[in-house]
């Protein structure tokens, strides 16, 4: 039986993967092919902007719907002829059949963490085992001592993929050295950065790789119990983990006397309750123990005093998904990728103003330019790259002139941002840096647990200043005060959330201070983004009087008769932008600084 793989990652499900699957089943049955093909629902294939995907005989079909499925079954499966129009196109426009090999989005990737994504059915432990799953666990249990495992991981140079980049092997070694008859392994699956979804993809697409990594970690440090702390917003991940844990127990990969050895280890799922700060390891532990999810001072570190006071290793999903691969292939193989200090790969979530939105796994040390242009396909609409934001609300922006910087932990830190969990948001000329900082600050204000003064009050005060500046009400003193406050919040906050919350402010100030000053001095937003500093106006030369904008305007701010020039009343306009979106003649445009009701503005 041949396989047809359908992507059932979160994004593809959202864009109709299941109706594609159902249509496929129906068509196969109608054509009498249901005995010849087996449909495999896989995890995320990566290029989420083009889903749903389907792979037949190595041919990758994208952007599918029910009609497309019918055509493909008719033409490809029955007639043996590839349906060109559903293939993916190279940036130059040429269509390719085997996109995974031919399209640079895929071909430039190195798949270690995501090795099974798009290839196996995440609900099937057999699929995982068929691709070498649980071999590494068997190997460590039967051939290696715990110390050997730790050495292997230490040699690999693997660093924590949750963002801080602490050497994983070293963390395990600390925990292993603790004398305690109870120890824990925790998988941090509380992925919360806006725009980051790599952990989710791994949990949904290859849950066993995480379980295997945890079991190996447990063996290495001598733990008996594991927890996966996963956010409630990931129901599919929870469902697939639950299935996977159950399967692993039944096959003897979890539970008592694993694979007939003396080693026993089991895993439970703990579901978060919607607090971003619970991704911070000490808050996460508090939450697992049923306490209020607020961080505590370190030291003691979790490896010394973790859950209920016992040594606890906390690793991120992506970190754990690397483990089995390293054991199977050896640390030397792992070190072939990446840089000396940051070996291996990293999964990035590409979002923002970029053509190929999605998930990519690339060797560390790759430049932002390669990531954005070669893999990401560049900026849509021929716009200019302005900056790249990495690391979510904890990270900062890197200006366009620094995109030849290699991506590794140290280089990003030197630029004032962080690797973080791997979110990459591409910003173009339409993005305002004050607005970007304000967006992330709004997030941290909302997510601050409230325990320490600088994070609780300081982020709010920073937000207020940014808000003032974005409204044209800021002063030059505000900019200096903002910087002072940002430094103090960074220096004195208790946990990583507060310590990194000022990064969006500090980096935008560092690279785009002029833009702040324009907001203050000229009451103008150069990117025409800040609502209070812009006006929507109609270009008399371009307006055809089609009334589309008048119809869509929610406040009745647009006046004009059919076929006659339309006019926006500034005192009524709420700057929602609907008129601009709906205008087919590009007659609506923005100006900054804003104009008054009776002011006339010349078309640009």
């Amino acid at each position, binding site marked *: 039986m041949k396989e047809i793989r359908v992507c059932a990652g979160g994004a593809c499900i959202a864009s109709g993967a299941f109706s594609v699957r159902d249509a496929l089943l129906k068509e196969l049955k109608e054509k009498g092919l249901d005995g010849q093909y087996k449909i495999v629902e896989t995890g995320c294939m990566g290029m989420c902007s083009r889903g749903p995907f389907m792979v037949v005989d190595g041919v990758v079909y994208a952007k599918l719907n029910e009609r497309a499925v019918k055509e493909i079954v008719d033409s490809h499966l029955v007639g043996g002829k590839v349906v060109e129009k559903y293939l993916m196109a190279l940036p130059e426009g040429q269509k390719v059949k085997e996109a995974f090999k031919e399209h640079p989005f895929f071909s430039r990737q190195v798949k270690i963490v995501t090795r099974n994504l798009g290839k196996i059915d995440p609900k099937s432990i057999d699929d995982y085992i068929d691709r070498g799953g649980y071999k590494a666990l068997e190997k460590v249990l039967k051939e290696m001592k715990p110390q050997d495992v730790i050495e292997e991981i230490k040699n690999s140079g693997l660093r924590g993929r949750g963002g801080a980049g602490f050497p994983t092997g070293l963390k395990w070694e600390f925990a292993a050295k603790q004398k305690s008859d109870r120890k824990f392994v925790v998988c941090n699956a509380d992925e919360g950065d806006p725009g980051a979804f790599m952990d989710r993809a791994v949990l949904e697409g290859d849950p066993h790789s995480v379980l295997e990594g945890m079991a190996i970690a447990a063996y290495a440090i001598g733990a008996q119990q594991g927890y996966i702390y996963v956010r409630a917003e990931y129901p599919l991940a929870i469902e697939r983990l639950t299935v996977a844990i159950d399967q692993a127990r039944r096959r003897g990969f979890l539970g008592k006397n694993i694979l007939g050895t003396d080693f026993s280890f089991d895993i439970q799922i703990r579901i978060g309750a919607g607090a971003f700060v619970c991704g911070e390891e000490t808050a996460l532990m508090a939450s697992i123990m049923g306490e209020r999810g607020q961080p505590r001072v370190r030291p003691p570190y979790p490896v010394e005093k973790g859950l209920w006071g016992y040594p606890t290793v906390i690793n991120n999903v992506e970190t754990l998904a690397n483990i089995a691969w390293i054991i199977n292939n050896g640390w030397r193989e792992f070190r072939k990728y990446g840089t000396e200090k940051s070996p291996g790969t990293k999964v990035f979530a590409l979002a923002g103003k970029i053509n190929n939105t999605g998930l990519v796994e690339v060797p560390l040390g790759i430049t932002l330019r390669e990531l954005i242009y070669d893999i990401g396909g560049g900026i849509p609409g021929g716009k200019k790259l302005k900056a790249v934001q990495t690391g979510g609300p904890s990270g900062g922006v890197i200006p366009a002139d620094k995109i030849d910087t290699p991506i590794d932990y140290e280089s990003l830190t030197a630029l004032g941002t962080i690797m973080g969990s791997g979110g990459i948001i591409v910003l173009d000329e339409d993005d305002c840096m004050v607005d970007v900082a304000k967006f992330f600050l709004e997030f941290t*204000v909302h997510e601050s647990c409230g325990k320490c003064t*600088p994070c609780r*009050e*300081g982020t709010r*005060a920073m937000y207020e200043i940014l808000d003032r500046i974005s409204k044209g009400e800021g002063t030059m003193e505000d900019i200096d005060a903002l910087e002072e*406050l940002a430094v*103090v919040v960074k220096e004195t*906050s*208790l946990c990583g959330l507060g310590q990194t919350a000022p990064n969006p402010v500090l980096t935008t100030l560092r690279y785009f201070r002029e833009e702040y000053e324009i907001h203050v001095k000229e009451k103008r937003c150069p990117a025409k983004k800040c609502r209070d500093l812009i006006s929507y106006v109609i270009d008399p030369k371009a307006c055809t009087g089609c009334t589309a904008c008048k119809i869509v305007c929610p406040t009745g701010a647009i006046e004009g008769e059919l076929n006659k020039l339309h006019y926006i009343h500034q005192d009524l306009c709420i700057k929602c932008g609907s008129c601009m979106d709906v205008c087919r003649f590009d007659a609506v445009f923005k100006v900054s600084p804003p104009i008054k009701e009776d002011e006339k503005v010349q078309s640009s």
Partner: protein
Amino acid sequence: MRVTIDGKEYTFDRPMTVLEAAKSVGVYIPTLCYHPAVESIGACRMCVVEIEGSPKLHTACTTMIRDGMVIKTNTERVQRARRVNTELLLSVHPNDCMTCDANGHCALQDLAYKFQIKESRWGTRLRNLPIDDSHPLILRDLNKCIQCQLCVRVCDEIQQMSIYSMVNRGAESLPQPDMTDKLGESDCVSCGACATICPVGAIVEKPSIGKARWWEVKKVKTTCPYCGVGCQLDVYYDPHKNEIVRIYASEENPEINDGVLTCVKGKFGYEFVTSPDRLKKPLIRKGDKFVEATWEEALDYAAEGILRVKEKYGPDAIGVLSSAKCTNEENYLMQKLARAVIGTNNVDHCARLCHASTVTGLAMTLGSAAMSNNLSDILKANVIFIIGANPTENHPVYGARIKRAVRKYGAKLIVADPRKIELAKMADIHLQHRPGTDTALISAMMKVIIDEKLYDEDFIKQRTKGFEELAQSLKDLDIDWAAEVTGVPKDLIVKAARMYATAERAAILYAMGITQHANGTMNVAALADLAMMTGNFGKEGTGVNPLRGQNNVQGACDMGALPNVFPGYQKVEDENVRKRFEEFWGVPLPPKAGMALTDMFMHPEKIKAMIIMAENPAVSDPNSKHVEEFLAGLEFYVSMDLFMNESNRFAHVILPAASAFEKDGTFTNTERRIVRVRKVLEPMGDSKPDWWIIKELSKRLGYEMEYSHPSEIMEEIRKITPIYAGVTYERIEKKGLQWPVKDLEHPGTPILHKDRFNFPDGKGRFIPIDIKLPPELPDEEYPFYLTTGRMLYHFHTGTMTRRVKGINKIVPKSYMEISPEDAEKLGIRDGDVVKVTSRRGSIYIHARVSDRMQKGVVFIPFHFAESRANILTGDILDPKARIPSFKVAAVKIEKAEGVTEVQPPEYVKKVLQDQ
């Protein structure tokens, strides 16, 4: 460890935080969320310092010092961080210091002043929350909260109530009680620790509001006048108005009250001191009335009356009641007055009613009648066995520590109590036995231990004698029978026995549920047997530990305010001892032991006159009707007291005494610790300290006593009392000393019986078991068990706590607890008035239907004069200890038709009405 702080090198010999290190060498680091009593959480970030070699700023409260560490506490970077964070806090804090009760005592105000911040640079974001006025004693204005979580932590870690948690997150996160934003609706036990610890004015003591600014008050440290825990208090008072403004726990004595904790009585129960009812002038009875007199007149009158009776009937016709409420010095003088001046050993005090059986039971087994261990080492116990004690209500500060031992340090808890008291709810095993079946229960446990050979053979061999006899006495004990009699399932008895016996360190705590029985001595001896056979002596977290009910019961006993012993438990009937005292006091002394107070009251034909200091036997003693008759029939009755009460209305002369807040002296707490009582206020009106009154009376009875200060009395005590031989006021100034203190160099004795018991051969004595059931059991006519005791908010006969407004708002009325089953059967609803009758009398009281009660048992606290529990209790006595059987009486209960309210005494009503 050598550590450099701001350029100076210091050496420290133990691990500590940077903050502690800096503080100890006088380097100031500001803090807001730090308090030594609770774990540091580094939340306010005010204590940040620079540490050389680290790029970050570190919180001094959570960073431990290391050898070679170089700390900078005062750099520009540090100052900027502190300043900005202070400004941030001020941006949400209302600038209303003018009327704030914390003004002058506010950590935030201090920082604002230090940095000279008039206005925050970071805007104003006031919360505009309603003030939580729901609690009668504690006011919360969360608009002022700086979110330091100290209230949350102290309630959770120290008081162990966990009333507060931070609710919501970010700027909205505020400390709120469970499921409500009103403290008055929560399970709060009103200890006020949150108000004590709050560094700003967000949580304050309601009775203190508007009384005085912080700079108008002075502070005196003293010992709490309520229970035997002996909490050390910082009393803030206004010297101009001569009144107490507020009370905090002293930070100096964490070993007693954790440096922060009080109970509701210790924190708020001081208003009685300035009550308008205080006796301010001596009173002499003229017919039916009392007439004010001068001290000269009253003292002369008192002396003449006593001498008259003495001449007529001899010295043994006079009874002297000393008091566990008074100081050691006063108790010493009082027994000296009886013995050396009047010439009788008829001196006793209320220990007779609480721990007389402890004195007898422990003296015969261990040789020393006191708590073997101390209040702090309970945290080291692996198993805690509490029987007949309700510490979370009656010794609340210690009760909280027991909860901490269980919740934080993982001790297993066994509670034996007829009621499902608070600790029973968190116990591993609750043995809910029938009142009065304690010996049966303890014996059954011993039987299991012997049968299963769980005893400590080495200990028994090396340190005790009489085990064979004990085993013999238990040989025929049938555990099934014991289960039947006690009403406790056999498997629970077995489980408890094993849990206790197999623990490495097991502590027994008990109180009046054990002692106040006609077989109280046996109960106590049985507990000593149990602890000895399992080797639970001489180590931390073990022992037999009676919890003393009154502030100075231990001291009053130590001082020999007992009919058979001189100070230091030296026997009156021992000729050598008596000789020493005769020489020391310079008079011949009566050779025979005197009468116990319970015996005095039963023999009106023998006792014709009484001197009663600070006691209210008409409410506190059993069969009160009978006591009243006795008092009314006395030929002469001298009372020394703060108030008129149910007893001294029969007196012939009342001498107004100063309260514990108005005099100097010492108390000895339940762990044998002698601690200072210090004068805070000038005595109200013409009232005088009891030691002065006794001294003056003595002079008029023909014996000069010359003391100008209680410290001189302690010097005398020290010379004649071996266990107090090393006690001087200088030595006990800060921490006190635990007796025995054998000489001026001796450091005191935290744990008794370490290597030997207090007998000449050093061996503990097992006492064979003789199981006796209570003399009065329920029958057809009186079908209910009545058991009596205390409750959290009130104390003894209510003369103190019922004069505190806020406390009376919480518990204004008397009540009887009854099980829901019994209540339903009798058609009684919560709040109904019932008539309770025993063979001795009847009372009316409000019913409180409570699932704490087992079927067939009712409980009445004895604090309420309008519903006097002791009208019902009997006066059958323990043959050795002469303690009455307060804990078991048979009663019948009827719904009181037509009565809807039992009115409290007038003075309580007045307290409640006062604005």
